[in-house]
């Protein structure tokens, strides 16, 4: 039984939950992996990109994935962890206009884009469409070290993890990207547990 070591009461709630992942790169692929290991029952993945060799320094992909679409490849990896997880894939470039329909069935959305302007419109689109449903975003996860600057800030149904200032122009390293992805997943789990997993 995959979840026999989970916290008591957690699996039953998370199995009923549906989580959207907007972007399947460094944040999204790792957050999705953590959520499946935690016992989340359904995921909706969206990304337009294909796996490149330069993704392998931080994303949940392998040499044999290079050139393949990220969403379907990530779904395969997640099914290799838990064959029973329900996954809907959208291989497309999201826009402000398509966010609501793409993630309509989701109890919660994980923001996992790389560009800050896209993070901004995603948060606006989600909160505009579903003001009562949480969104967990990340801002500031570049570089290495500075572990103590990684924070979780909350306001209403918005959670933002990360240091808030570091920019990907300084380079992205798996350790720090995965801290942010893990903080996003951990916050998502806590939010889903708090609301009982069902809308």
């Amino acid at each position, binding site marked *: 039984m995959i979840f026999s070591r989970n916290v008591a009461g957690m699996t039953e709630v998370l199995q009923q939950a549906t989580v959207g992942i907007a972007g399947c790169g460094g944040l999204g692929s790792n957050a999705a992996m953590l959520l499946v290991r935690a016992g989340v029952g359904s995921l909706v993945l969206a990304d337009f990109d294909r796996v490149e060799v330069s993704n392998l320094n931080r994303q949940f992909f392998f040499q044999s994935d290079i050139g393949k679409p990220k969403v379907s490849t990530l779904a395969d990896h997640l099914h290799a962890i838990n064959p029973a997880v329900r996954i809907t894939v959208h291989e497309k470039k999201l826009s402000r206009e398509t966010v609501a329909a793409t993630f309509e069935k989701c109890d919660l959305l994980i923001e996992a884009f790389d560009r800050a302007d896209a993070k901004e419109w995603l948060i606006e689109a989600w909160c505009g469409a579903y003001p009562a449903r949480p969104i967990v975003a990340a801002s500031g996860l570049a570089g290495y070290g500075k572990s103590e600057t990684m924070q979780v800030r909350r306001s209403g149904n918005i959670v933002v993890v990360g240091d808030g200032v570091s920019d*990907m122009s300084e380079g992205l390293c798996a350790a720090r990207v995965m801290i942010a992805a893990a903080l996003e997943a951990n916050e998502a789990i806590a939010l889903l547990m708090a609301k009982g997993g069902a809308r």
Partner: protein
Amino acid sequence: MITVNNRDKLAWHEGMTVRDILTQMNYVYKLITVTVNGVLVPRDQYDTFRVPDGAQVTVFHLSHGG
């Protein structure tokens, strides 16, 4: 009185907008998400959204990387 990011205090005035708060706080970051009392204020409302006295305002800076 307005509280920004659980820390800074600003004097409130009638008709105060989100833009007024960002200007007073000298926010230089272009890409941000703002909430007033936990509710998101879209960017196109920064000049018109009236912030009530006693409001808790949160400004999240969004930086590139993912």
